[in-house]
């Protein structure tokens, strides 16, 4: 064991293809989860905005789901949906709710009332007001939710490795390295998964800058 180095570059060199495949799988699992999670959360947020009384219940539910350990949820779902993609994606999706819903609701709450009054008074239809005023002005907080949910999901994808080597993305290497007492694999899986999360986060920061040039102008004016 003592002879085993922390990183065996020759192993990495010999496995570049499979490593890249795992990165692809990792992104695939994360993108599906974040997209579906975002769509459902948007619906939940819209419902919460229209019917304020429901908002505490939506939050409570999302929080309750979030308290379930991911390991336990993956394991429990095997009983229901076997070793299918659903078993991998359902936990990833439901964990995003508590990260998305409050940010989306806050994003729409942050649209100033005088701006809405002016929009109504100038003859926006309610659909035009939503698309052209409310949605663009909610972007900063909605993107904040996307950053949180994406980073969290990229981390959680690794846990789905317990469902077998068809899942887990880079988590496969972490689990495999653990079983084989092979630190190179653990490092490759862990560091690349951190790298993906950081890159995705930077991507969203860039996206927000592109979508909200007015926010940068405001910061410069202060």
């Amino acid at each position, binding site marked *: 064991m003592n002879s085993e180095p922390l990183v065996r570059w020759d192993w990495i060199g010999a496995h570049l293809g499979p490593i890249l495949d795992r990165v692809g799988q990792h992104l695939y699992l994360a993108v599906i989860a974040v997209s579906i999670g975002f769509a459902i959360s948007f619906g939940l947020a819209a419902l919460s905005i229209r019917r304020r009384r429901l908002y505490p219940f939506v939050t409570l539910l999302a929080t309750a789901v979030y308290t379930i350990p991911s390991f336990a949820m993956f394991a429990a779902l095997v009983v229901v949906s076997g070793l299918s993609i659903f078993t991998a994606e359902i936990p990833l999706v439901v964990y995003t709710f508590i990260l998305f819903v409050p940010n989306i609701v806050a994003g729409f709450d942050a649209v100033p009332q005088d701006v809405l009054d002016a929009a109504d008074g100038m003859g926006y239809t309610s659909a035009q007001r939503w698309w052209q005023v409310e949605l663009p002005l909610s972007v900063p907080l909605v993107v904040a939710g996307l950053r949180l949910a994406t980073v969290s999901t990229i981390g959680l994808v690794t846990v789905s490795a317990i469902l077998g080597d068809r899942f887990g993305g880079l988590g496969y290497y972490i689990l495999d390295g653990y079983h084989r007492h092979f630190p190179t694999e653990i490092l490759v899986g862990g560091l690349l998964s951190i790298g993906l999360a950081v890159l995705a986060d930077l991507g969203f920061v860039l996206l927000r800058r592109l979508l909200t040039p007015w926010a940068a*102008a405001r910061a410069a004016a202060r």
Partner: protein
Amino acid sequence: MAATSGNSGAASLEFRAVTKRYDPGTASPGAVNDLSFEVPAGAICVLVGPSGCGKTTSLKMVNRLIEPTGGEILLDGVNVQTENVTALRRRIGYVIQQVGLFPHLTVGWNVAVVPGLEGWSKPRQLARIEELLALVGLDPERYTDRYPSQLSGGERQRVGVARALAADPPLMLMDEPFAAVDPIVRSRLQDEFLRLQRVLAKTILFVTHDVDEAIKMGDLIAVMEEGGHLAQFGPPDEILAHPASDFVARFVGVDRGLKRLSLRTVGDVQVGPIGRSSGLPILPPETSLRDALAILLVADTRGGIAMDEAGQPRGLVTVDAIASALGDELPARAGA
């Protein structure tokens, strides 16, 4: 100042027994009771009164942000309730106290909001932006691409006025438009707006709680009192000279005589022979009689020298002459 694109002119506005009840049986703030008055095309009508008197409610019933429970509002003789609400709002300019500029749009695109909704071509929108910014005194080159967060309060309010004028509406609704800026800026915005209005001649319904602003801006003033009743309707000088009730007299203030002086200028007053003129203050013709009186009292002289438009001495103005000017009725400004 040239308004090059076609001016759609102004519309007449009439309130006929307009009523808004919120909670049947109780007097709630913002309610309006049997409100009737007529504003001729091209006049500024100011709704003034204490808070909760229903003036903002009345304004918002015109563009149907609030629907009346009774009566009707006629725009050029047509009941606004029979019109498509979106189309109606797009042909009525709307300016509010907090301005409500869209923070995510540049100044230029804020101005072009209604033209954009109405599907104008882009070149036509750009031309309109340039024209309107120049009209409200903002250099288009410097301001078009700025965001609202980069403007001062006064600049924002000018953009708000330009935005409301964009589709050349025959009627403008202005809800305390100058209340959020400091007194010096407010006074300048008021003066500029009155100068603009002499060119545009829009019909304007203007809400304020400030009597002085009402007197300054209004061709006609509707004084409203609690419960949404119309206490008095008429030109400013008439309301100041002959308040219809104790409420109106109290509301316009014990200094209503002085306020009437502010409606008159040195150019309106009878003058006497000047005699020995050394040391007497010089009074240009556009000086209000209120200011002239203040100048004479401070200078402690028998009078001041009234100048004419050409800058030549016209004659001597005395404190007595200023006082007697209050006996004259003012020519109506409405619909000028």
